[in-house]
């Protein structure tokens, strides 16, 4: 592969072009393989497509660019703390709109850090919530009959189903 380029261009599933630096792309295993296999140089016109929609890809790239410096070199503890705070801010996003797209994208791009972060964020939204609150947050439709609900309740003592 050529390591001369600093940034590569990728296409989103919507067909939009995005630039991502090589060091940031390395956070994703499939992208890293692509880097090693495909010739990326200035006169190369091959543009790989990433099956992630534009809106999500923007966020994923933002995450990669932020995390790349730390992933590529050991940084100090205080930087780690700062990054954590950044992560929390980064994850303040609309559930319905984008959180799960990010989760899927992180899964697809094998990005463990982002994946854990998105799972954690989704779980945090459920913590301390009642069943009906969770249904409301995630727009889940209750398709149980009341008998079925009662049966579930009996099967799980010690767990409040309110």
């Amino acid at each position, binding site marked *: *592969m050529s*390591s001369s380029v600093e940034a590569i261009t990728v296409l989103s599933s919507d067909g939009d072009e995005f630039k991502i630096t090589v060091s940031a792309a390395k956070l994703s295993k*499939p992208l890293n*393989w*692509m880097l*090693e*296999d495909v010739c990326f140089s200035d006169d190369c016109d091959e543009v790989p497509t990433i*099956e*992630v929609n534009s809106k999500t890809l923007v966020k994923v790239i933002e995450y990669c660019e932020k995390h790349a410096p730390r992933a590529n070199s050991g940084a*100090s503890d*205080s930087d780690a703390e700062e990054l954590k705070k950044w992560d929390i801010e980064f994850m303040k996003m609309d*559930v*319905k*709109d984008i959180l*799960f*797209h990010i*989760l*899927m*994208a992180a*899964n*697809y791009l094998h990005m463990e850090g982002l994946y854990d972060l998105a*799972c*954690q964020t*989704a*779980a*945090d939204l*459920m*913590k301390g919530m*009642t*069943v009906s609150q*969770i*249904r409301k947050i*995630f*727009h*889940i*439709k*209750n*398709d*149980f009959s009341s008998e079925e*609900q009662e049966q*579930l*309740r009996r*099967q*799980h*003592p*010690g*767990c*409040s*189903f*309110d």
Partner: protein
Amino acid sequence: MSETGSPPPPPPTRPIQLASAENPDIISQLPDELLCLIICQLSLDESVRTSVLSKRWRGLWRFNTHLEIIGNRMILPLAQTQNPEEAMDPRSTLSRAMSRSIKRYGQTICSIMVRHSSDLHSCRITHFPYSVRSEEVVTWFGYIKGKNVKNVSLECSFSDIGTNQNCLQQLPPAERFSKPNFPTGIFSGLCSLQLIYYTLRTSKPFEGCENLMKTLILKGVNIDDETLDGILKNCVGLENICLVECYGFRNIEIHNPNLKVLQLNTLVLEEIVAFAEKLEVLLLDTIISPNRMKIYSLSLWVIHCYDQSTFGPMLASTVGRPVLQASHLLGGYQRYWGERSNFLQTLSKISIDLDLNDIRQCVHLICFYSVCTRLETLEITLPAIIERLNKVNPFWENQRYAYDCVEKQLKFVSLRGFKGSDQEFQFLRHIIRNGKKLEKVTIICCQGMEFEIERVLTVKNASPELRIVFKFQTHDADQELQELQERNLLSYK
């Protein structure tokens, strides 16, 4: 970049296109593995509760690879966790109801364990003393061991909710100390184990842990010398040892060629002996000064030494001996570290509590770094509250020349709790003026110190690469004290 040829890229699976306009319930369209990972992060009661969200979610929790079973949450119904006062009163109806459910708690957990149907990676159980008394803990452990669990944390609460008393206290000592009666070798097969608020009087449960167990965390554990010694002798594969607020013993003696991280918090000790050639990181926080300390390692590169815990002075006055100060440990290294120790040759980072306004502590610091040959990172945390400032003493001013350590080695310096006193400023000036290799100086202080910041920024720097970074704390001194209590290296995840 790999010369051996890259692994063949697997055909990237096309992500499922999540529809959003017509069906807003996106989460239910995620594949099972992803949903499981999400609910794995919840405590068991919450994770089970997702079963009633809709049919899509029914029974998903049974494939959790992590179980987080929290007694408090299982016994207090969700609606009542908001009202802990009523629960605190043993005569209240709520309290009595909780006493009854404590007695059923053991069965509740067993019935859940039976329903759970996959292997476990990790499990965390918090429970009440009642479960220790009735030996339920051992039964649960049998269940989770059957699921090939690798990482376990067991925590016993101080008292039984509802009665607000610890039912173990009523037992005669012989019985109290023998519970829970962990059978011989029960912890074998585990990679990591955390025990909180237990009593250990035999090391037999740890038989068979020789190779596999890598991490052992004991918090608030009442353990005697013989048992601790037995455990440490037996578990030679341990890479991480963490003892926090444990009591009942006086000496720690470790002979372990695999140990990498040793963390000791809030302990009263006569002697610390560690022969661990691979020991890399040592953390000592609020240790009531051992009379003898011998640490031998060929790889030690970080020392953390803290003494600012609010609990420290209380403990020290009970025992009648002072808390080991970071400056003493470093300055008196010859006394503390033993003759065979050569850690100075490998040490590259120290993180310490130090009051720069105290000249004696500064002298110790200088004594220490004057002999370090590889020190690159120096992190100092100043006391959260400085009671009185000493008279201005041109101590750092009088350091006519800087030691090699400052001039040729130090790359990163961090000063937490900078208050802008003259002494602190002089120290920074000394470092910035002389440090030719300095890359970054981080100063963590309160807001509203423009004058002091300006003063630091005007110092002429010896290193062309230097960045001086100011970070502002938004919390007050009390919260800072609180934060300083929790400087952990090892925590159970």
